[in-house]
Each structure stands twice: as C-alpha cells, then as structure tokens.
C-alpha cells in the first residue's frame, strides 16, 4: 500500500506549480545569454514539427516536390485540409477523416462521462466509506495500471463477445472505462481524502447517507478535480490507438486509427500535404484543450502519466 499512497502523494505534490523559485536576476549576463540560448534552441526542436506540419498542409503538391520542407508556402492553399476532412480515401470509402472524427466524438462523450462517474464514486467510497477489503481491490486496481495492456487484450475480446458488445462503440466505451479506472480512482481518492473531516462528520451526524453526501456535499465542492479528470480522459481517449484498432470495425474506427489508415493507404503518389492536414486535424482537439486549459492540463497529465 505504501508505494501506491506515496505515488499518489508524489503526483499530487508535483502538480502544484507555484511561483516560488530562486532569486531574480535582472542583469544581462553571460549566464543569461547561455540560458536563453539553450531554451530557444530547444524550443525550436519542439516547435519544428508543428511548424512543418502547418506549412506543409498549406502547400500544393508541386511546391512540396520542389523540396524545401522548412520554407513557407509560396502560394497558400486550403485544398489539402478540405481533402483530408472530406475526400481522402481508404479503399472505396472516400469520406475523409470526418467519419473518424464523429466516431471519436461518439466514443469520447460516453467514455468520459461513464469513466469519471464510476471512478469518482470509487474514490469517494475508498476514502470516506472504507469497508473490509476495499483497500485490497484498490491495490489490485493500481497494480493493474502498470500491467501491459497486451496481457489483457485477448481476454477482453472474449468478455466483449460474451456480452455481445464486440465491435460496438459501447464495447470500446467499456474498455476505456475499465482502463481509465485505476488512475481516476486514485485521483478522486486522494482528493476526497483531503476533504476536511468536520464536514463529513457533520453530514453524518445530520443523518445524511452515502449518496446524499456524495451528491449534495462532495460533488459541488470537487469541481476542480472533475475538470482535471475530464482533461485527462478527453486527451487520453482521443489519442488512443491500440484499443481503437482492436475493438472496433472500420465503420466505427476512431480518428487516430482512420488517420493511420488514410496516411498508409497510398494511391499512386503520397499526398504529403493531405497527410499533414489530416494529422493536424487529428491533433487539433487535444491541442485546443491544451492551450485552453493551461495549468489544469498540467495537473491532468501529471496524474494521467501514472497510467503510462
């Protein structure tokens, strides 16, 4: 148990990013030049792919064949974006990435809602309503987060088959709920454990029961942690490839799988501009969430990283 708790504590502690730091240096020193130099050079490495993807997606194929991958487009065209979204083909099906996008949305919404609902109740029960054996199940859950998915892929095929959800969107929703459970439960358990005890005691004295306390007291005061959990799940589920490729069928493929299909099913010449537009489109949802949510995102992923 100790390791688990400590990991949770470490994650929680690590996510607090405050303004503390060594003293300011205002002088324009040699050290500072070195410092900023390093940061700018490394920053370029990080920005390069995004830049290259964007400019490539705005060029026409003749211009791409000229070669300069870093040069800005001489003539900006949005054709590749249109094609990637609505016309790119996998086999006969030339409906572009749009289908995958909507599939991903249909997978995403129930998965996020269900996984967070289940995990928040778990965390609540584990921190405030412990019962005999609850810690054992929790430990198994956390250890489960480290088990390579590969060892569970096939048994899940069998389970989904038995309940008749194989290939169905709901089957994938269930898989995401199951594999999102360890980390989300940990997240909520640690959060609810930090709730002031007086609050909980007072509610108990007033005779409030399990669900009453959950809905009337705990839910309203835990909005921030829900936002963290949502960010974590939205990016995680949107970016999933492994489960999507195994537990769905072509018409229910999520966007990542369809992206890989479109880019890897070449018809004659590779259309790099369309490929890059498609890649950007797929990355757009998590990127928007990232840039919009700022520090909350950091907390979300720091928690999610435990998932590996």
């Amino acid at each position, binding site marked *: 148990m100790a390791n688990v708790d400590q990991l949770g504590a470490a994650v929680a502690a690590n996510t607090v990013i405050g303004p503390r730091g060594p003293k300011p240096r205002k002088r324009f020193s040699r050290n500072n030049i070195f410092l900023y130099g390093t940061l700018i050079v490394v920053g370029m490495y990080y920005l390069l792919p995004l830049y290259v993807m964007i400019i490539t997606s705005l060029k026409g194929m003749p211009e791409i064949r000229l070669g300069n991958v870093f040069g800005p487009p001489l003539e900006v065209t949005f054709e590749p974006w249109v094609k990637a979204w609505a016309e790119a*083909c996998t086999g006969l099906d030339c409906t572009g990435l749009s289908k995958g996008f909507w599939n991903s949305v249909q997978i995403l919404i129930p998965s996020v809602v269900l996984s967070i609902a289940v995990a928040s109740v778990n965390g609540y029960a584990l921190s405030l309503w412990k019962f005999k054996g609850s810690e054992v199940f929790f430990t198994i859950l956390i250890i489960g987060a480290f088990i390579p998915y590969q060892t569970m892929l096939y048994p899940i095929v069998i389970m989904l088959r038995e309940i008749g959800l194989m290939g169905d969107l709901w089957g994938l929703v269930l898989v995401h709920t199951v594999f999102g459970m360890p980390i989300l439960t940990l997240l909520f358990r640690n959060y609810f454990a930090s709730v002031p005890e007086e609050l909980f005691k007072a509610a108990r004295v007033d005779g409030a029961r399990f669900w009453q306390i959950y809905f009337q007291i705990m839910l309203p005061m835990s909005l921030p942690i829900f936002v963290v959990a949502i960010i974590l799940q939205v990016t995680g589920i949107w970016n999933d490839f492994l489960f999507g490729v195994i537990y769905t069928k072509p018409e229910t493929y999520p966007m990542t799988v369809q992206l890989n299909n479109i880019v890897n099913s070449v018809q004659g010449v590779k259309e790099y501009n369309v490929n890059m537009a498609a890649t950007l489109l797929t990355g757009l949802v998590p990127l928007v969430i990232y840039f919009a949510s700022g520090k909350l995102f950091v907390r979300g992923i720091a928690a999610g990283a435990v998932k590996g």
Partner: protein
Amino acid sequence: MKLSTKLMAATAIVSASAASAVELEVTHWWTSGGEAAAVAKFAEAWNATGNTWVDGAIAGSGGTARPIIISRILGGDPMAATQLNHGRQAEELIEAGLMLDLTDVAEAGNWREIVNPPSLLDSCTLDGRIYCVPVNIHSAQWLWLSHDAYEAAGLDVPTDWNEFVASAPALEAAGTIPLAMGQQGWQQNLAFGAITIAVAGLDDWREVTVNKNADVARGESYAAVFQAAADARELARNSNVQDWNQATNLVITGQAGAQLMGDWAQGEFSVAGAVEGQDYSCLPGLGLNEILDTGGDAFYFPVNDDPEITAAQKELAALLISPEVQVSFNLAKGSLPVRGDIDMSTANGCMQKGLGILADGGILPSGDQSLSADTQTQIEDLMAQFWSSDMPADEAQAKYADIIASAD
C-alpha cells in the same frame, strides 16, 4: 452439425420468399488505386441487384487487415462477407462453425466444373463442404520492367531474370535503382518466392513448400536461391520505399529498372495510363520458368443469425463468381479469372501471358495453401531481416531450413 442443419432449414424458408433489399458489409484490404477500381466492380454489380454494398475497406496489407477481420468474426460481430486468401487461414474458423456452408450454392452453380484450376475450390473445401468463393487467381512470380529506365541507360529491355541482373550495373551507372523493393516482410518474401521458382525449379520448390522437406531446403539448389536473393538484395539497396505500390510507382516513373511483384501491379500501371510493351514489360516466372502459382483471393461468409442476411450472403456468393462480374473485376484488378469459360479477349498482353500459362497448366499451389499463417509469418520475418541487413546467404538458408523443419 446441429447448427448447420438449422441454418439449412432457415435458408430454405427464406430463399422461398422473394429476396428484399439487404445491406451487406463486405470487408477487404483492396485499397490501392487499381484494387479499389476493381472492388468497385463488385459493388456496382451487387448494388445493381437492388441490394446495398457496404464497403469495409481496411487499409494496409493482408497482415494488417486479417487480424481485424478474424477478431470481429471471433468476437461475435461478423461482417456479411470478407476477403481472405485461400488456404489454411480460415481452417480454424470453419472448424469452429463460424463460416457459412456454401455447398448448396456451389452445387447450384456447378462450381466443381467451372472453377479452373480445381485446386482453388479444393482450398475452399473442408470435409467435402465448400465454405468460400474464389474470385481471382493471383500469381506472384512476375518481373515488371520499366522501358523508360532502360532507354535512359541506353540498354535493351531484358527478357529474363539473368539478363536483368547482368544489366543492373549499367542501370546503376545511369543513376537508376536497379530493383525497386518495398521494405515490408511480405514483399520481400514474395520476391524470394519468385526467385526460388526461377532458380531452384519446380520440383525442389514443391519438395520444400508442400512436403516441408528441410533437407532439400538445406541443399545446393536452395543455396543458389539464397545467393541469388543476396545478389538481388544488393540491387535493391537504394530502394527506400515501404509500400508495394510506391515501389511500383518507381518503375512506372522510370526511377527504378524493375520490380518483383504479383500480377496486381498491373492495376497500378493501368491506373497510371502506362501501356504494356511500350512503357513497361512483364515477365511471368521471371522469364525463366513460365510457371505461376495459383494463390488468390476468396470471399468467406461468416455465419449470421439473420435468415434474410444469410440468403443475401448466398446470393452475393453466386454473383461474385458469375461470368460478367468475373470479367469486369479481373480486368480492373489485373488478376486472372477463376473460370476458364469466359471471354477475356479484352485483356492486355500481360494478362494474356498469364491466361496462356494457365491454359497450358503451368500452375502450382501457392504458399498460402501449403503453409500455416504461423509459418508464413516466421518466413516473412526471416525475409524482412535478411533483406534489410547484411545477413550472409548461408545463415539465412540455415534459418529457413529450421523453420521448414518445424512447420506444421
């Protein structure tokens, strides 16, 4: 048994009533330009019957698509019909009772008589029952040559593999890649197979692949095969594409001299508007051994609870092998039809060569029919390793013989 009798009863009831429009989802891995054009012929023909073809194309080679197809069938969410190569791939699925028995359709359509060569139907047969429809014959042993590349180098287009190897240094000097090769295991295995038949000859090939005789695989004729493959590896050194059709594209555009690829490369040449004998040449059996294997694609129909769908599945099975559909599909795909009684006179030179070989009986079973998916994967892995490293020929031969020795 119980299941199949139930099914027979169910279909009997349904086939009596008039078939209404049914949507059938068909999965396949035909996603290159030529292939997609061919599969469209199936879809058109099926839609013309008033039903609907729901296309379930899965990108990537069969290696990517097969697991998806199989896991869906096993997962209890079967498609209505699916492409699978003939042979041993579907054996276990049939044994588990997951595939629709097509014997009645086959008898009604007299498949026994019309399918040529009969071995195609044999691979669809298990315990006397027929479970799949062969739709085409694929042969892998073709050498495709670019006239542009040879013109640029000032050479005559070779007429067999040996001439090609001899011409390679001149091609290279002219800045052309002698041999285009996609860096994927199945392509490298295909090239190896083609070289084997050309270099080792039929008897030894049969002894190794069909009878799994590891001693022959360790012998001198196979040593020569591996040496030839090692030489070919040098010729393909500068070919850095991954997909087979990208490699074909190198030949079409004259950036590479030749490619070892199956007859489906024909479709890419057609789509690019290249003319046989003028822009490119094809040499079946590498011009040495005029022989082709008869692997191919077949469609299987997973068992379905819905009697209406079952009836439609049988209707589709009969349609796929009907003469008109066979002609239009195979012309687009560049493969050979599974029935000898249809008019293929509109086919181009390459297909005519193939038809000629077929008519002369120069055929042999394909690896798919003789080796399990497991063994095939092991051989593909070995080939992927061999072609992209400097593994000596004798070492590769020893490993190959070990795989053959343990093959089942």
